[in-house]
């Protein structure tokens, strides 16, 4: 129930900078051959050697990426620790319902989307990585992949474009895939409509899950709605910049860059019981009525979980 119980794969007591285990998946240890075995060496020295080994691997390009561009090492050692600070200290995320997510094999997590800036996706990845010990592969909007930096960082973190082809491929490889069917309608909704789910796309995610025969795991993320309360939007500016919306929040754009700091709301992430689709069979994906009904069912599920979790959380900021 508590976000602060520590991942037992990581050594206790370290938070920001992570110790990289020596010689993981490396056939020949080049650096510490002449030295004493690692166990006899000073921890500081070990850290330095490990850091150096990491730096060397990165500079030499000696790491692997998968066909989606996922770089697990970079994700684990650089990208996730950055987000983890936000996860643990700023938003104080509490994760529950971990037992509902299978430990291996393909599954589709379907969550609500909110917060004006899609930080909820990043927090969900941290939670899944730290508490479920799996890599979450999110399906993102195509806009992300057109923006310099964002696109390749998102790929390196394991995410890909929201398309049936990519989703099917990931699920076929037994990956844990996450999707926000509301899309920009969800992230960009005004503050007054917080915690009210928007339309769930066109149900493409249900079709994909049916075809891949994987369970759908509903997920409610509470807290993201308050990080950038969107009071209004500037449509002409959004059109000019090619963005889906240009938000006006109590702090942005009034305070300039300081307005980009998210408000420190208290977050809760709840996984619901998996909804197995095995009974329907893959042919059901071609039956729009089944797909619509299932989509509605998932949506109601997530909405109900949202209300429950919201009650459980209490006040938004402490």
């Amino acid at each position: 129930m508590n976000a602060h119980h520590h991942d037992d794969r990581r050594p206790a007591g370290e938070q920001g900078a992570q110790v990289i285990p020596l010689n993981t998946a490396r056939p020949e240890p080049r650096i510490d051959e002449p030295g004493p075995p690692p166990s006899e060496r000073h921890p500081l020295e070990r850290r330095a050697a490990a850091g150096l080994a990491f730096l060397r691997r990165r500079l030499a390009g000696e790491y692997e990426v998968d066909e989606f561009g996922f770089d697990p090492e970079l994700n684990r050692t650089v990208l996730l620790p950055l987000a983890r600070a936000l996860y643990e200290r700023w938003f104080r995320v509490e994760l529950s319902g971990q037992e509902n997510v299978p430990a291996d094999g393909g599954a589709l997590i379907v969550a609500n989307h909110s917060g004006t800036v899609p930080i909820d996706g990043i927090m969900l990845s941290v939670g899944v990585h730290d508490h479920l010990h799996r890599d979450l592969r999110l399906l993102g909007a195509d806009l992300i992949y057109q923006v310099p930096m964002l696109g390749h960082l998102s790929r390196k973190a394991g995410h890909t474009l929201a398309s049936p082809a990519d989703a099917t491929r990931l699920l076929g490889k037994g990956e844990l895939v996450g999707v926000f069917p509301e899309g920009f309608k969800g992230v960009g909704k005004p503050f007054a409509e917080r915690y009210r789910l928007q339309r769930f796309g066109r149900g493409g995610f249900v079709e994909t899950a049916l075809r891949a025969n994987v369970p759908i795991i509903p997920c409610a993320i509470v807290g993201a709605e308050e990080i950038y309360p969107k009071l209004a939007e500037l449509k002409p500016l959004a059109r000019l910049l090619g963005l889906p919306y240009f938000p006006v929040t109590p702090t942005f754009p009034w305070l300039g860059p300081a307005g980009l700091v998210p408000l420190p709301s208290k977050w809760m992430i709840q996984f619901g019981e998996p909804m197995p689709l095995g009974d329907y069979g893959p042919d059901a994906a071609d039956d729009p009525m089944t797909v619509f009904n299932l989509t509605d069912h998932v949506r109601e599920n997530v909405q109900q979980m949202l209300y429950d979790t919201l009650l459980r959380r209490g006040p938004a900021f402490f």
Partner: protein
Amino acid sequence: MGRTVSSMPSAAARVVLVTGVSRFLGARVASTLQADPGIERVIGVDTVPPTTPLGRTEFVRVDIRTPSIAKIISSAEVDTVVHLNLVTNASGPRSKVKEFNVIGTMQLLAACQRSPDMRKLVVRSSAAVYGSSPMDPAVFTERDEPVEAPTSGYAKDAVEVEGYVRGLRRRRSDLTVSVLRFANFLGPGVDSPLTRYLRMPVVPTVLGFDPRLQFVHEDDGVEVLRRMTVEDHPGCFNVAGDGVLLLSQALRRAGRPYVPVPAPSISTLGDLGRRFAGLSGFSPELQRWLTYGRVIDTTALVGELAWRPKYGSEAAFADFVSAQGLGRSAPLELIDRLGAALGRG
């Protein structure tokens, strides 16, 4: 089904015509085919004579844009055409390259359609037909349509060539037609815009983008073309080494210094290089590829041939790097020295 046909002696290639024989891929394929005792004659055609000896390959100097190609096909009773003519280098003016790629293919296919001896056509195409865009699926299969079809360069030529090949297949359904969409070739012998790009003293990359790239080793490419020629594997196949490299990762492995520059200045840099340094510049399709990258699925090929490329993308790149004498970079040396000092201490 393909394999049962190939076991029948009548379907085996007897007289093979290889186009583009004076260029690297054509020369290698021709010399591989001429070493096969099952093939009676190998005829190589190109507009310039080959620079390397091709064994018992008979060279005929002919421009495939002219109808004389039809005479060769009918008089030599050619039954298999291996069309490797696609020019992917930006050598010479664009209009001439296009003429060569598209009009040449049309003439050749017209001759093939007319010939009663023709049984098989193997066409070298390119994975560039899928284009490169931020909205692409992560991996392209042969069934996928490009999200943004290529609008320029050899990529567009390849799309048009494939269109004409489909037309021929419709009209001559008795032909075995194999179309191969190759990822970028790499290896010790390859000279292409990509290899010239990688050998630049400081490699410019597109700021804010790190594309996923795939390579096919020249040996694997030749082997695929050989198998397609001597066996029957009709259809369209992606050809690439397993695995993916990011551009940044590849440049690090090659020990190349690189500097990210904003996208518009890349083409300016390329222009300057072309004008003053004799470099080939960056064609729009190369630039798009270096921005968005592209990954193709080779499951169909692996299933059809029951064979996997010997070199994955990483191994193909490593072979290129070692053949070029590239590799270690200065920061890496420093780290190794530091590491050694730490190990002793």
